[in-house]
């Protein structure tokens, strides 16, 4: 490369981070256990209200048929950007939460 920044991996030759590479884009990975109708919020998610840039993916920790139903998503600008997930059912659920930034 002729300009910018370049970081190589342990072998000293393969570029793994730099201004020629789009990066991983994961913003947050978490696991949450929600009681019936309970919520969890993740704050400090820049541009959280922009659904075309910040994508939220949930999956049940031990997935089953129709297991992803009942989790509602809200976005707000509070606290530097907030993603809130609410368990709409009355049963407790444990979910994997992945928030990605699309660039």
């Amino acid at each position, binding site marked *: 490369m002729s300009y910018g*920044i370049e*970081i190589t991996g*342990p072998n000293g030759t393969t570029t793994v981070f730099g201004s020629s590479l789009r990066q991983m884009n*994961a913003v*947050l*990975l*978490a696991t949450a256990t929600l009681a019936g109708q309970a919520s969890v919020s993740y704050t400090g998610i820049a541009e959280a209200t922009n659904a075309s840039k910040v994508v939220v993916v949930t999956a*049940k920790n031990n997935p089953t048929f129709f297991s992803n139903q009942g989790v509602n998503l809200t976005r707000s600008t509070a606290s530097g950007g907030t993603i809130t997930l609410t368990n709409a059912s009355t049963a407790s659920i444990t979910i994997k939460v*992945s928030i990605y930034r699309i660039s």
Partner: protein
Amino acid sequence: MSYGIEITGNDGTSDFLVMDSDLNPSNYQIVATGSGSSVNTASYVGTGAEARLFFKPQSGGPTTADVSGTSYSFYRYNITEDGQTNIIEATRTSISVSWMILSDIGNTSVNSSMGDHGLQIFKSTGAVTFDSRRIQVNNSFQLLNVLGRGNVGGDPQTTGATIAGPSSDVLDYYIEASSLFHQTGSTSGNIHGYQVLGSGSGSVLRHMFASWNEASGGGGRGGQNVTTYISNQFPIVYGELRQ
């Protein structure tokens, strides 16, 4: 930006954001790559640390997995239908797949052989978001897209997703595995898997998401084999290793 570092990149096509401390980013890196019929992400990032497993679906039958917390075991389905797109049997065989694990760079250890040189970037909270000494793998991963819920049909015979990215061959792509499952008996069940059909520029990703009952054995309704194919109930997250 008000503090820290901002890096704007360009890949010859367009500008993009590489890093901006103002966004309080978390930098996720590949902590391990490999292949095999099973893998436990906790073996690479420690118990309790968050990680996501991506795998390469294969041709020859939908790939599925048993997922239990941080443990994944991979299988290929052998689907038998009744000639009218109803499943009457879904057996499976353990297979080896290529996989990679994504996790926060803070969950990896510092490579002491790299000494105290390199680049560190911190969030406003003081947590590390990038540390060149913690890079474990000579590779990088590009998240390409997230196919939203309900956009990809569940019948692999009639539907498929066109995967857009640097490679024209879907066999090159990795898919996030959290939502895979298998709940199947001898005459009924629920299955979820991915299959690559075709090769090269004509390849597509096939998504199987089905609930089936075979008439014989008492599972069917009204004496009929019944299979319900459902569009992706979970977003499909995919990307590509660069090396």
